[in-house]
């Protein structure tokens, strides 16, 4: 059974310049203990998708519409704000890019961690304190008990992100949504954090939705991949399929533009020309057409739908040969 099912998500923001269409009708689903990576460049709509699932987009400016949004058998769109709040942080954990801005600088780490136990799990303050120490220990922070009295600024960037993860897993969520969790970290620390996430996932069987721009991180931990471009899903499938039998020219170009450490010199780089489209003025055809090397006349007629191009693999390109 699918743990998370999202169908036909549209998100638009009203701005001074008009309506910005950030997400244009995307579907995604996630099973228990599966890792789905949502990949894309800035402005592709990947973070907005994560925030829409969490119900964290500002009500005043964001217009969110979806055909279906189900989590663990419940219809999230039918829940009240209060019911959503009870679910966030408990059944769905969240980790954000910058742990400094998601932690309260004037409260101790211990206070912030034990609050979760008190609010979501109905613990007493003393039990919540022990629970907080266990959590810090679980994410590999030495002398966990003593460090509960410290403030966020007394931790290094990698440590703070561990605290962020500790907070996210405090209630053993079924789903962890992580938005660029390692982007602000050094590579050796990133490797530690990714390893930690994998361990916790194996232990707790939680599903992870990882939002990232880093294709290396995707290759390291994702089971399935969803590639977004200008608010649409342009390719999705198992990590193997997307990386080795890439269907969409955008994904292929993206993979080509990352210099690889494991290969000898590959000649001149082949960057993607131009820049991503303006979401205020999306053209009628394929949004990647203006930058695509393989563009044809029919690309400008309409956004091609996702077509099946292999087992557990779909791509949105007129060149994809649909397989039955």
């Amino acid at each position: 059974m699918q743990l998370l099912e999202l169908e036909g998500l549209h998100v638009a923001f009203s701005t001074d310049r008009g309506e910005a269409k950030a997400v244009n009708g995307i579907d995604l689903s996630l099973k228990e203990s599966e890792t789905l990576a949502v990949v894309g460049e800035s402005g592709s709509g990947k973070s907005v998708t994560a925030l829409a699932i969490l119900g964290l987009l500002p009500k005043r400016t964001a217009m969110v519409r979806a055909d279906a949004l189900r989590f663990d058998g419940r219809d999230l769109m039918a829940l009240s704000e209060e019911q959503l709040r009870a679910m966030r942080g408990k059944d769905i954990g969240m980790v954000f890019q910058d742990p400094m801005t998601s932690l309260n600088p004037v409260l101790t780490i211990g206070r912030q961690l034990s609050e979760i136990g008190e609010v979501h799990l109905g613990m007493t303050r003393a039990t919540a304190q022990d629970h907080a120490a266990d959590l810090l220990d679980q994410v590999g922070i030495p002398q966990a008990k003593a460090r509960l009295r410290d403030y966020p600024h007394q931790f290094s960037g990698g440590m703070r992100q561990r605290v962020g993860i500790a907070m996210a897993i405090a209630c053993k969520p079924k789903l962890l949504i992580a938005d660029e969790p390692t982007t602000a970290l050094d590579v050796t620390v990133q490797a530690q954090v990714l390893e930690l996430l994998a361990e916790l996932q194996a232990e707790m069987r939680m599903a992870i939705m990882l939002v990232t721009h880093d294709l290396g991180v995707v290759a390291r931990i994702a089971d399935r991949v969803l590639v977004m471009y200008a608010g649409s899903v342009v390719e999705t499938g198992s990590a193997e399929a997307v990386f080795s039998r890439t269907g969409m020219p955008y994904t292929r170009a993206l993979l080509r533009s990352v210099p690889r450490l494991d290969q000898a010199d590959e000649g001149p780089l082949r960057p993607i020309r131009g820049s991503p489209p303006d979401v205020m003025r999306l053209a009628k055809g394929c949004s990647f057409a203006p930058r695509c090397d393989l563009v044809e006349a029919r690309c400008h007629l309409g956004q091609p739908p996702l077509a099946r191009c292999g087992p557990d693999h779909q791509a949105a390109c007129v060149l994809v040969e649909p397989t039955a």
Partner: protein
Amino acid sequence: MNALIELRDLAVHFPVHRGLMSGTSGAIKAVDGVTLEIARGETLGLVGESGCGKSTLGRAVVGLTQPTGGTILIDNKPMTRDRRVQMIFQDPSASLNPRMTVGAAIAEPVRLNGLRHGRAAVVARMHELLDLVGLPQSATHRYPHEFSGGQRQRVGIARALACEPDVIVCDEAVSALDVSIQAQIVALLEDLQGRLGLTYLFIAHDLGALKHISHRVAVMYLGKIVEVAPKAELFANPRHAYTRALLSAIPVPDPMVERQRKRIILSGDIPSPANPTSGCRFHTRCPVAIDRCRSDEPDWQEMSPGHHTACWRANELVELMPDALSLSTSDARR
């Protein structure tokens, strides 16, 4: 080697003040005895994690930070702030004046350095520079906020080129950009090097772009250079435990390769540069450190022509830390 830039035992220490009256108490040794050479027309990649001192080193080379020890030579002469050495910064939106048009921002260094005389000549040069970095002439009267990050970085490059430099220090010049745009800027820098014979010091924490553009790579840890080698040699055969751990930490965008790799996961973070430990500075996190590493600072040894390292266990690393990025297996698969 005919070095254009030579660093001899360069040190940059920042005094630490604790309280108003107590004076200085120790120092942050951001750069602590670095000796490096960069040949004319060469790109030296400098890689390291945050806090290792790589940006401070770069700022010292441009003359933005005063070294507290050692010397910097350019063409065998001691260098002070010099038009011939320019810098490209990480965040082009922070390094450009938002109230200055792109044309004015690029023309300013041409005029101030007296490189062209008369309005017409300065404007002609500005147009030439826009063209050189692949920006349209229509950019002249527009403001930085009207451009995307990649285009703003092109403005930053044009501004550096306006001074007609020999050396450009690129400090995380592509780190803030999207991957597809990173590749465009790296390609532009390579093209400019070919056309103008520029020398680059390319500083980055991300080895991807750095690997592509560099001829030689230096690895920095806690204020010291721990390994220097020609690029191919460094990636194929790293001879310092830290370099091996660093390479192992970087994910490769291929799930099949990732599955086969042996991970070397370091414990802890980079220690404070205020009181570096005795012996090898990496020993606190090194998975293969021995007693000697804790007591004696490793010698700077030449492993093969141009490949230097400061690791006591350099000769045993192939067995101790089996290589994560075995070029042979991934090439065979392709």
